[in-house]
């Protein structure tokens, strides 16, 4: 299936679950310089599903919130109109023509990456109206780029000047010299430089 074709039915109740995603984006907490290059590149992506990468304050740091492309995505389960799906590559995507902008996925996501303040089109359209009549922004790992070149990286990763964002094989992290903590990778001295 071409990455740009309509994804198949949602994973919930659709027989065998899609295979695990092959690559995903991880953030090195010890490298993010809070430059917003990732957010700007995502914001300006004309082929994507809205500005899906947006920074959020995490204690002393302002860090980009990135979808983890969960194997059992709560956002997909929560969507009442089956607009949010996990496709046959394991990428959790939003079907634009189905999305009614109700915000259920945003509330369901345990990692807050679809938060109304973070990535929703609300910010984009400068509207006080959080959800109704809008589409939720959702990272699809820049499928248009991956379709053009299998070595390509999502825009946020390619735009990251510090090397904090990486597009890596999902398993096994240790073989890639990664210390994964959820969707984040950290150096040996977690937060040491940030709290000094």
């Amino acid at each position: 299936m071409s990455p740009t074709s309509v994804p198949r039915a949602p994973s919930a109740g659709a027989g065998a679950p899609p295979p695990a995603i092959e690559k995903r984006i991880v953030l090195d907490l010890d490298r993010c310089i809070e430059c917003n290059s990732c957010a700007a590149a995502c914001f300006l992506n004309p082929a994507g599903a809205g500005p899906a990468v947006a920074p959020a304050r995490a204690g002393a740091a302002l860090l980009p919130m990135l979808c983890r492309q969960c194997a059992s995505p709560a956002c997909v389960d929560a969507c009442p109109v089956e607009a949010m799906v996990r496709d046959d590559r394991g990428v959790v995507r939003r079907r634009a023509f189905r999305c009614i902008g109700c915000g259920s996925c945003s509330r369901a996501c345990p990692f807050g990456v679809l938060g109304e303040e973070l990535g929703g089109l609300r910010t984009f359209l400068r509207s006080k109206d959080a959800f109704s009549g809008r589409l939720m922004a959702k990272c699809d790992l820049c499928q248009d780029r991956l379709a053009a070149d299998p070595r390509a990286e999502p825009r946020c990763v390619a735009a990251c000047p510090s090397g904090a964002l990486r597009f890596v094989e999902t398993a096994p992290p240790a073989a890639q010299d990664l210390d994964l903590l959820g969707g984040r990778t950290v150096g040996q001295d977690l937060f040491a430089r940030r709290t000094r």
Partner: protein
Amino acid sequence: MSSSAATAEAAGLCTLCPGACAMQLARHGDFMLRGEVPLTNRGGLCPRGSALGEVLDPPSAARRILVPQARDDGRSVLLSFPDAVERVIQATAGGEITVFLDGNLPAEQLQAAAAWTAAWRNADLCLMIEPAERDLLIGLESSGAPYLEPSAWAGCDGFLLIGGVFEANPTCSRRIFERRKSDRKVPLVVIDPGGGAACKFASHRAACPPGRELAVLSAVAIEPASPDAPAGRACGPAVRRSEDSEVLAEATLTAKAAGAALKSCSRLAVVVTAEYGRSADWAAIGCLAGRLAKARGGSVAPQTSGANALAAVRIEHRLGTLPLAKALLRNGDVRVVLGGDLAALLGWTQEQGTRGLAAAAAALPNRTTQAARIVLPMPLPAELSGTYLLEGSRAVTVGALVPPPAAVPTPEELLGAFARRGGTAAPRPPADVSGLLDRCDCPLPAAWPIPPGDAEPPGDEDLTLLLARQGFNAGTGEITAHASYQTIARAEPDVRLAPADAHRLGLRNLQPVLVRSRHGQFRGRAKLCPTLAAGAVVLDEALCEARRLLPCRLAPGGEGLVALPVPVTVEVLP
């Protein structure tokens, strides 16, 4: 939706800072043109670089200045190009004319403009760059320190960062992180009263009160036990204010520790950015930073707000074009501004900044074009090809991403048209530009007096205003201000405050605030910044409204331009 794969239209480099990131223009569907980051990571593309691609897009192009216009009795009238040239010449009335040209254009444009103005009896040329950057670069050139080549970062055994370096050029962070990844013991010393991103990664942070970068750098450089201690002392005027015991007392402990950490370095990299409104000492800081790097077997890496500021300084030195301060002193002259935003650069009001202004040329409207009687079109940076002095002062030929729109003249063509109409024959074609771009052999300028002015004692409640680089806007924002990420997602500018001050003021993160100095006021939203020392408040130096709170002043005799930190109050808005 991923309904349309992008077609690559052109590839080139971003020239908004010396990082020179690779960028592509991509066409999405039939009409949408975008600046895109290449498919795989070759360094990054910051929000400024993304904006540069976007302003070539048709929606932004709708705002472009494509034909000459005149303001007659408040009305805008379209002119033909010959009529516009005629009006500019009439406005000079045979008198003197000062041409202010954006100094961050390709070197060939700067050289050709200098040739035309030299031939034109009535005209003088000023290559406009940030005043603080010009001073810093002169200081670095005078120090004799080599510039850091891209391949040399990996071999550095220590880094000294002065100012908001990661904001000025985010790509240099990767090189520093890679080096520290291979050796965690490599010291990373940061001197930044603005509390920029690099502070979070510092192994040693030298505390620095606002405006006292020179004193703190002196304390770091003059490490008493070091055999090459003269690095700091040898700079003469560089340490003229380092005797300030109060500052040194406060900074001594951290500066000494930082100095000790760098003591054993044999390949020290000094990465420095000159920020507006901080100090009158940038030339001395540059000289001292350069000498320190040299004494430690290392190099310097200046991070400027355009990619060609170093070329402009060298061309000014070789061809004797007017420094900005001297050009501004020429009150009787008629001014023509080609590119850049003179009023915004100086933090002056539109009226002050455009006094004597006959004409302004720009690709997109700015405060200077808004005040000019005659407005002319000019290409965007991505539409001109030519030579830039990029990282490590390498001369690199950068191609245009797209040609300028039809009938939009290059600065060289514009100046040529004015000069010809003013009776000047075409000058001999300039020689190869490379001869102009060799290092300046310039001495450190003598310290000049700080202009008298707003010596207003701070009140009890006052904070000190600093301006600092932020990664969103390039220069004074004349290009990026038109891009959608900056105007929509970043519509409310940050007012960075230390958590202790925010607590004292009863402020929460992201709450709207009003910052007032005696020169004006600025509205933004509070951003609590744990790396900022209490007592300082920081605004984005690219925003003209922020610069107005601490406008540039001319030193007597036009020796320099200076803006210093000022006291401000911060008011919480409902």
